[in-house]
C-alpha cells in the first residue's frame, strides 16, 4: 500500500498543483481581463526567459530564475507606470520585448523551446511545494482583495476615498499576476501560460452578468481546459502545455457560436 502511495505521490502532487494553478489563473485572469490587460499577459511572460538563461548559467533550477525575473519585472512595470503614468500595456510591451531579446541571446535553442512550451517530466518536491503555495497565495489574494479590486476598477479616485491604498493594491496585483505566470512555467512554458490566464477569463466575460459568475465561469473553464488538455497529452504521450491551451482556445471559439444575452 505504502509503495503505491509512494509511487502515486508525485502524480497526485502534480495533479493537485495543476488544478490549483488553473484556479489561480482563472481568478487573476478575470481581473486582468477587466483591467484591459488582455494583451499584457503574453509579453509579460517573456521576462521569464532571461531569468531561465541566467539560472542555467548559474546551474540552479530555471524555475527560480524565471520567478525572480517575473517578480522583478512586476515591480519594474509598477514603478515605471507610476512615474510616467502611461498604460500598463504599453510599459509591459516595451519592457518585455527587450527581455525576450536578451533571453533569446543567453538561452540555447533546446532550452528555449522547453522554456517557451513547457518541459515534460516529473516535478521535484520543491517545485510542487512552490506551485501549491504560490497558487494558494494568488487564490487567497484575489478572493480577499476582490472588493478593493472592484472599487479600483471602477475608479482609482473612488478607491482613494474608500481608504484603498491604490498604489499598493496595483503592486500586489502585478506581483500576483507575475507569480501566476511563474506557476505555469513547468506545465505550459512562458509562451502558453499567458493564454491560460486570459482565454478562460475572456470567455467568461462574454457570458457573465455578475462578478461571481465571471470568477466562477473563468475558474471552471481554466480547470476544465487543464484537466482535458493534460489527459489528451497523456494519451498521446506529448507535453501537456499545447493541449491545455488548445482545449481552452477550442472552448473559446465554441463559445462564440452562442450569442451573449443582452
Amino acid at each position, binding site marked *: 500500500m505504502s509503495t503505491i502511495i509512494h509511487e502515486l505521490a508525485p502524480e497526485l502532487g502534480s495533479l493537485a498543483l495543476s488544478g490549483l494553478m488553473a484556479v489561480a489563473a482563472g481568478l487573476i485572469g478575470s481581473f486582468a481581463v*477587466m483591467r484591459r490587460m488582455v494583451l499584457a499577459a503574453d509579453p509579460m511572460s517573456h521576462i521569464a526567459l532571461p531569468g531561465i538563461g541566467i539560472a542555467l548559467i548559474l546551474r540552479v533550477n530555471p524555475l527560480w530564475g524565471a520567478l525572480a525575473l517575473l517578480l522583478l519585472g512586476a515591480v519594474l512595470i509598477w514603478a515605471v507606470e507610476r512615474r510616467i503614468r502611461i498604460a500598463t500595456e504599453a510599459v509591459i510591451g516595451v519592457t518585455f520585448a527587450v527581455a525576450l531579446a536578451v533571453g533569446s541571446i543567453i538561452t540555447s535553442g533546446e532550452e528555449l523551446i522547453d522554456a517557451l512550451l513547457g518541459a515534460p517530466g516529473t516535478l521535484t518536491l520543491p517545485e510542487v511545494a512552490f506551485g501549491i503555495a504560490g497558487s494558494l497565495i494568488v487564490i487567497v489574494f484575489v478572493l480577499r482583495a476582490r472588493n478593493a479590486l472592484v472599487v479600483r*476598477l471602477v475608479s482609482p479616485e473612488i478607491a482613494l476615498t474608500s481608504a484603498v491604498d491604490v498604489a499598493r493594491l496595483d503592486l500586489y496585483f502585478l506581483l500576483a499576476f507575475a507569480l501566476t505566470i511563474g506557476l505555469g512555467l513547468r506545465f505550459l512554458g512562458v509562451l502558453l501560460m499567458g493564454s491560460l490566464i486570459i482565454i478562460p477569463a475572456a470567455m467568461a466575460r462574454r457570458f457573465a452578468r*455578475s462578478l461571481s459568475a465571471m470568477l466562477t465561469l473563468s475558474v471552471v473553464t481554466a480547470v476544465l481546459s487543464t484537466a482535458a488538455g493534460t489527459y489528451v497529452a497523456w494519451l498521446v504521450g506529448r507535453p501537456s502545455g499545447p493541449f491545455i491551451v488548445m482545449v481552452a482556445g477550442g472552448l473559446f471559439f465554441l463559445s462564440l457560436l452562442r450569442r451573449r444575452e443582452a
Partner: protein
Amino acid sequence: MNALEVKDLAVRLGGTEVLRGVTFSLPRASCLAIIGPNGAGKTVLLRALIGALPHTGTIAWAADTVLGYVPQKLDIERDLPLNGRDFLRARAALAGSSSAQQLEALNSVGLAEEALSTPIGNMSGGQFQRLLIAFALLGRPNVLLLDEPAAGIDAPGQAQLNEVLHALQDRRAMTVLLVSHDLSVVYSQADHVLCLGRHGMCFGPPRTALTAERLYEVYGQPLGFHVHDHS
C-alpha cells in the same frame, strides 16, 4: 470650525499650470458650487481636494472628514460583468456597511431594488450616475464631492437628483461640493459659489459673487441666467 480650508492651491499637470492661487474656506453643512468654462480646472480641483493629484498650497479638511466622491466620467468599459450589487457590495465591504444600508443608499438616490441585479452596461446614464452616488453614500461620508452629477441625465432625473442632494444635506448635515454648468442649480442649491476662469477666481454667496460682469470675466463671453454645456 470649517469643513474645508484651501489656501494658495496650485496644480501643475504635465508642465502646465492648471490651477493657481485658489483660496477659499467652506463652513460645515454648506453647499459649494464650482463653476467655470471647460478647461478651467474644476475636475482638477476636486481631484486635488481628495488627494489624487500632487499640488502646492494648503488643503485642510476638518479632522473628522469622511469623503464621498462621484466622478464625472468613468474610464471603464460598460460591458463589464458587474451588476449594481457587485458595485455596492464591494464598497459596503470596505466601509463595513450592512446590506440594509446598501438598500437604504439605493433608496436615497431613487433607484429601485432591481438595479442590484442589473448589469451596469444595461443601465442608462442617469441610473448609473445615481448608482455612483449610492456607492459614495455607503462610506457614510460627511462631505460629498460631485463632478457634474447631472450630466447625461434627463430633466426629471436632474430635478430628482437635486432633491436627493437637498435631502442629504438636510438630513445628514452633509457638506456638498459640486461642479455644475447649470447656473439655476447654483442659485437654487448652493450657498457658496467658486468660479474658476482664465482670468482669476471668485468666491462667495451666489447672489453677490455672480454678477454679470464677473460671469463675463469667467466665461469670456456674456451669459444668460441659464447655462448649459453639452460638451
